[in-house]
């Protein structure tokens, strides 16, 4: 029995290490092809449209409500301590350092990451990726690199949109609805947010973008190697895995990055 438990733990550990190694190699290959491919620009533009433009409305909606909730919660918490003037600082720092990059990445995982996995997974099970290889077209360069490049652009830009709209949401609750002083709200934002906070938020957005795109593309690309299922079911399972692993990695890497930047 003891042997079985140790064997199971060891197997799981080895599989996890193997998976991380495979994802790391996949990311490396994808980045190499990003710089080696001559047609990366037009393909990336299309992916920026898919990842960025098509997710914009969702990000606007989520960020507005997120900022409004932060404004509401912050107002009633700060008022107990007579510090309601700091609402602008609370909303902006929470958004720029943490909630902006994390929530944007999680939303994009659900919106764009899942579709990347499903699209590439279907291409894998219908021989389309094999067809690319046979035509001597590098499938990494054709499918993965444009998505990586697009993520490097889209994730920080959408994070910036999230931050700005979230701050507007906080303004709507704090100033427009609860009659807080408008000058105090914006003064606390400008006095408390430093360039380091903004850099921290953007670095997180870039890292999350790379993580989400790599994991989701990896899951789709190796759909045929799944041991739990085959065919369309494998595509479904790969999509679920892509989203779950991405979300866990976003939160885990957020902790690491926050501890580095503090």
């Amino acid at each position: 029995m003891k042997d079985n438990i140790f064997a199971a733990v060891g197997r799981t550990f080895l599989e996890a290490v193997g998976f991380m190694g495979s994802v790391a190699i996949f990311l490396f290959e994808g980045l190499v092809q990003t710089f080696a491919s001559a047609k990366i620009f037009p393909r990336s533009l299309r992916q920026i449209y898919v990842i960025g433009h098509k997710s914009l409305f969702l990000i606007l909606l989520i960020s507005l409500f997120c900022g409004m909730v932060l404004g509401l919660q912050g107002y009633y918490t700060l008022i107990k301590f007579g510090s309601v003037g700091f609402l602008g600082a609370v909303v902006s720092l929470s958004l720029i350092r943490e909630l902006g990059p994390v929530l944007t990445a999680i939303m994009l995982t659900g919106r764009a990451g899942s579709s990347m996995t499903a699209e590439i997974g279907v291409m894998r099970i219908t021989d389309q990726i094999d067809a690319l290889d046979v035509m001597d077209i590098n499938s990494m360069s054709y499918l993965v690199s444009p998505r990586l490049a697009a993520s490097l652009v889209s994730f920080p830009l959408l994070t910036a949109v999230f931050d700005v709209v979230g701050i507007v949401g906080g303004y709507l609750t704090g100033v427009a609805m609860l009659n807080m002083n408008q000058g105090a709200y914006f003064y606390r934002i400008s006095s408390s947010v430093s360039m380091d906070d903004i850099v921290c938020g953007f670095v997180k957005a870039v890292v999350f973008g790379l993580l989400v795109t790599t994991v989701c593309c990896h899951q789709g690309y190796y759909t045929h190697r799944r041991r739990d299922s085959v065919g369309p079911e494998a595509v479904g399972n790969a999509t679920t895995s892509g989203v779950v692993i991405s979300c866990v990695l976003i939160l885990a890497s957020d902790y690491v990055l926050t501890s580095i930047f503090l």
Partner: protein
Amino acid sequence: MASWDIRFDRLQAGYGERRVLTDVNGVLPGGAVSVILGGSGCGKSTLLRQIIGLSKPMGGSIVIGGQDISTMDRKAFRRLRRHMGVLFQDGALLGALTLGENAVLPLSEHLSLPKDLLRREALRVLSMVGLAEFIDYYPNELSGGMRKRAGLARAIVAEPRILLCDEPTSGLDPITAARMDDLLLSMHRHYPDMTIVVVSHDLDSLERIAGHVLVLRDGVSSFCGKLEELRKADDPYLRQFLRRDAGEVNDCGAQAMDGTVAASLKRWLES
């Protein structure tokens, strides 16, 4: 390179630990239409994947045009593979591209050609397969047979020396299947030097197109030669296969349905 024939010598191949092909020997001659024939699960598609380099042999060798691909480095094999066109089972067209873009994908990816020239090329190959009017359609707007024909157009756009077709008539009605066979024969007439290899278990297609046949049985090549020689072969399995004879069939041993299940089923059917 003189002749683009494909030679197998004690080839073994499979997936992971499982060997699907255990001993394949024979030659598919250059400039001929050859059919790789065999029952379901005998390793036909595995053999095709070996030829196009999607899997590595576990043993033995494959020699294409005088070059042993099992010992060839990746770069050299990629150069050799440029001379191959492949028609996958369902066409394997890229869903995000139109038929025209799919048809000229090998050209648009590897050559710097103007768009109007690429469109003319797309029209040329699509008209060869009777799909010129569908040049701006997407693959999901077409029937299975049309997708296969479009896949064939893409496979021949770079005028390859070897054309490989994976079950081109499977899933097609008899008329569409016959048209597909005629299309392959027409390709053979247009490109007499092209080695055409068709993986199939369709006996009608075999009769119509094959000049040469390699028969696989349980991962072993049981026959390799001309179609006429196959017809005269004494091997009981080959004769049985060509006659579509099921052989000794075990009785299915039908038993009466459980009474409770039968009663429930009856109630449901009558409800």
